[in-house]
């Protein structure tokens, strides 16, 4: 196919797409009257255009609505649950309980430090232990918070329960350390 033939056919295409006026289209076709091959190709393009313009649209099956809306409903419910905020009061209460649980530990640590201050040599032993215990506490709290965050999206109530267990977890840890 020569370039000029392609260009002429592209003009035919544009006429099909943009000119509603049949006369204007006929004028373009008459320009091709001395080129039977191009004219035949133009006729074929027009035929494709007519067939596609007549092709029917589909109707979505009725059952599709139920399937889609069930999925939409599930997603929206999950979003609503995810949006359900862990109440600020619950977080504050959990933190207060966590503080309360760690208070004996802090008191013990302070007591050790005060007495160790009278005997500076003891500081070498006591200080690293106190620091280690506190680091461990922070690590435990961070891990509990991570766990709560992980489940929060799918199951916010479990997340709240995990947070509520934080003081107990800390107290258990303190008991363990005390026994050691």
């Amino acid at each position, binding site marked *: 196919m020569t370039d000029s033939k392609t260009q002429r*056919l*592209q003009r035919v*295409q*544009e006429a099909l*797409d*943009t000119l509603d006026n049949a006369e204007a289209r006929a004028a373009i076709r008459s320009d091709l009257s001395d080129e039977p091959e191009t004219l035949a*190709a133009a006729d*074929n*393009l027009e*035929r*494709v*255009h*007519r*067939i*596609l*313009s*007549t*092709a*029917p*649209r*589909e*109707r*979505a*099956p009725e059952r*599709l*609505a139920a*399937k*889609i*809306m069930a*999925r*939409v*409903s599930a*997603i*929206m419910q999950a*979003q*609503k649950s995810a949006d359900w905020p862990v109440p600020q009061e619950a977080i504050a209460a959990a933190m207060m309980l966590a503080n309360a649980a760690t208070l004996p530990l802090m008191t013990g640590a302070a007591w050790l430090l005060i007495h160790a201050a009278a005997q500076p040599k003891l500081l070498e032993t006591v200080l690293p232990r106190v620091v280690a215990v506190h680091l461990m506490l922070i690590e435990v709290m961070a891990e509990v918070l991570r766990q709560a965050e992980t489940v929060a999206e799918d199951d916010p109530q479990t997340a709240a329960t995990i947070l509520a267990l934080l003081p107990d977890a800390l107290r258990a840890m303190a008991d363990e350390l005390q026994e050691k």
Partner: protein
Amino acid sequence: MSDDPILLEWIERAIGGDESAFEEIYYTYKDDVYTACMRMLGTAQEAEDAAQDVFIRLLRVLPRYDHTRASFRTWMLTITTNYCYDQLRKRRGYDVSMDDEDEPVALTLSSSDPTPEQVALGLEFRDRVQGMLNRLSPDDRQMIVLRYWFDQGYEEIAEGMEITISAVKSRLFRARQKLADLLGDIALPSEGV
């Protein structure tokens, strides 16, 4: 581009989690989405699965819709045809087999008389048009579907697909040439057959 204010309200409410608003959107555009999926993918089962996925995707990306850039219908059809395009690319060889690639598809336009015979002819016509579409590449199929089933102009297609108008023209031309080759000897009723 301007959308119906009611539609914009539905969109807003759907983004806020209102199921009934999304349902309104679904019922307004279900046939558009399903038709696009059907024409792109070629089978009812795939079209149904794809339409589900498209509406779920639509739900997720709804907050990103910018009504100042494109009409909702154009935006939604772009999502739909892009989704189907991806499915076709995954399928790779689409529906073309080496044996029948160049075999013309006999095609006759039926009249609109609702006799059982002509209903059957209409279905046959639809299937044959689908048969031709199935032989186009995903790119070409997407062009033809947007142009003919959704009456999009060059500019609208170019905006939706983020390509130039001249690229739209040349792809459409290529697609039509391919379809013209596939038509073979067809006879239209208006030509006396």
